[in-house]
């Protein structure tokens, strides 16, 4: 488990991280959400030792993170880059060795990953000869080649077409299922919504919310209901204990003040005529996100 405890960081007078704490648990995909400039990349760089924290600590399995531990982490930086003039397989295997693998294992892992990421046919090409999407797949391979004990991916899906997203996702899920904690940042909330088990939301350098996705939904999601009737639904707002959120012809979204008020609304609607649908509204991450920050 990766534990980030109360880290802070400033650039000049500008404080970009302030008392940031969260956990990345084994076997779980943790989505790291935040607007541009909210501190996602800075946090990841600190975990990877690329930047130093001005306060706080990062622990791996209960011990302060050392360079030797980091060698076994997998990192995909936001700014992508591999050696443009070096062969794809050659440089991924080389990076594997740099991460501490012996040559044979590095080559074996490289071949397996390229196969999984559907890049085998381009293994001998120079990186610069690949399309951007394929370069991105190579970048994913570079982060995974040494079977990392922890994966940190900065915007791993940006720049990928939908098919590539599925391919990469399959590979990441497999790692998570194998017990590896995976932290990935994204500003595409719908992607995170589908993928993550846990969510960390950062805003202005502070953690706005952190926890299991479903817990956060329960915590931040207001209990809203949507009702669709045959006629005009404007009357719903007149029911005592109801706060009308939105009304549009036969459709109304409302928040009941107390438990049971939703049933009062439903009974009233049934008395008035046809009820086409009546559903609780589950908040999306978008809504949680907007609420949390």
């Amino acid at each position, binding site marked *: 488990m990766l534990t980030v405890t109360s880290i802070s960081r400033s650039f000049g007078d500008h404080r970009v991280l302030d008392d940031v704490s969260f956990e990345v648990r084994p076997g779980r995909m943790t989505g790291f959400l935040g607007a541009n400039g909210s501190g996602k990349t800075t946090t990841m760089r600190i975990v990877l030792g690329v930047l*130093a924290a001005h306060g706080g600590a990062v622990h791996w399995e209960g011990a302060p993170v050392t360079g030797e531990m980091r060698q076994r*982490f997998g990192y995909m*930086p936001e700014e992508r*880059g*591999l050696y443009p003039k070096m062969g794809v397989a050659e440089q991924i295997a080389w990076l594997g*060795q740099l*991460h*501490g693998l012996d040559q044979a294992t590095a080559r074996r892992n490289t071949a397996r990953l390229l196969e999984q990421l559907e890049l085998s046919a381009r293994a001998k090409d120079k990186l610069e000869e690949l399309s951007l999407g394929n370069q991105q797949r190579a970048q994913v391979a570079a982060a995974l080649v040494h079977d990392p004990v922890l994966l940190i991916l900065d915007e791993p899906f940006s720049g990928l077409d939908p098919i590539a997203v599925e391919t990469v996702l399959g590979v990441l899920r497999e790692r998570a299922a194998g017990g590896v904690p995976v932290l990935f940042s994204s500003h595409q909330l719908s992607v995170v919504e589908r993928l993550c088990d846990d969510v960390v939301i950062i805003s202005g350098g502070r953690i706005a919310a952190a926890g299991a996705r479903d817990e956060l939904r329960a915590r931040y999601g207001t209990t809203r209901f949507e009702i669709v009737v045959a006629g005009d639904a404007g009357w719903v707002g007149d029911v005592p204990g109801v706060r009308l959120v939105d009304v549009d012809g036969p459709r109304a979204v409302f928040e009941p003040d107390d438990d049971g008020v939703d049933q009062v609304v439903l009974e009233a609607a049934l008395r008035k005529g046809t009820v086409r649908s009546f559903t609780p509204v589950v908040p999306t991450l978008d809504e949680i996100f907007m609420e949390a920050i």
Partner: protein
Amino acid sequence: MDRRRFWSATRLVAEREVRTLLRTKGFWIGFAVIVVGLFAMSILPTVFGGDQTKVAAVGSQAVDALEGSDFEVRTVSDVDEASALVRSEEVEAAVVPSGDGVKVLALDDPPTDVVAALRTAPQVELLDPSAVGQGPRMVTIMVFAVVFLIFGMGGAAIAQSTVVEKQTRIVEILVSTVPVRALLAGKILGHTVLTLGQAVVLAVVAPIALRMGGQQELLAMVAPALPWFVPFLVLGFLLLAGMWAVAGSLVSRQEDLGSSMGLVMLLVIGPYFGVMTFSDDATVMHVLSYVPFTSAIAMPVRLFALQAAAWEALLALGLLAGTVVLVVLLASRIYSGSLLHTGGKMALKKAWAREE
């Protein structure tokens, strides 16, 4: 820091540098130019420069006087025939009898080389016979200075490879995986090995080229100073390598490399011109042979000319080695401070102050 981990990272980085450079066309073209140049320098003078001065001689006294000279002597029967040859410019001069001795006929210019050959030179006694003559000394200076210049400039490849890593941002993966100092050490090690490799090839090829050009004497001249030149060259290269790495780390794009490489280039070319210019000034050469940047050329030359004792060479080597350690330490701090910087050229002061 775990030493084993550090060295295995250094070795991997060095291997990659060597492999990458060996694969670039520019490296082989550059090396081929040096080798071809070496052959050209040693062979061409014998092909084109072989024209001997032609001299006509009349009478046995003239023939005797010209014996043992480098001239192509043509014996003719009388003075008229000799002057006709001079007029038609078939010979440059003619040596003809005149009174008790000989006189020289020439067209419009006194032929100094012929006159010098006829002059009876006084006997010379050398008081310090071991001292090396001016000619061989100049040749040695030339050879050492040019080799230093070539390899010193070759270090620019370190700056290149550093800036490639910065520009592509792979540097972020590298820094998160291995210590920055291992990256720097690997680069310097890799390029030093390459330089040594080239030096070895040149050391093998040079005697062949010189022999083909019939210049064994030149080879024999330079050979004794070589064992001293090699350690000086390697340490001199290490000194520059650290600075080339810094030059690369200060900028983020290849296009900006020129702005940070100027100073290092000056430090490569400066010693070359310094030693070439002051080669005759014993005092300046004495000083230059201790200054770390120029000592790599000046001290081996002084040793060759038997102007310096072994302890002086060891002292200069020590000074050079000390400077190497200092520069590499400084370089590694600046390198760490500037490696992740993006944008325009970074000021040295800022790179120095920046914490990781």
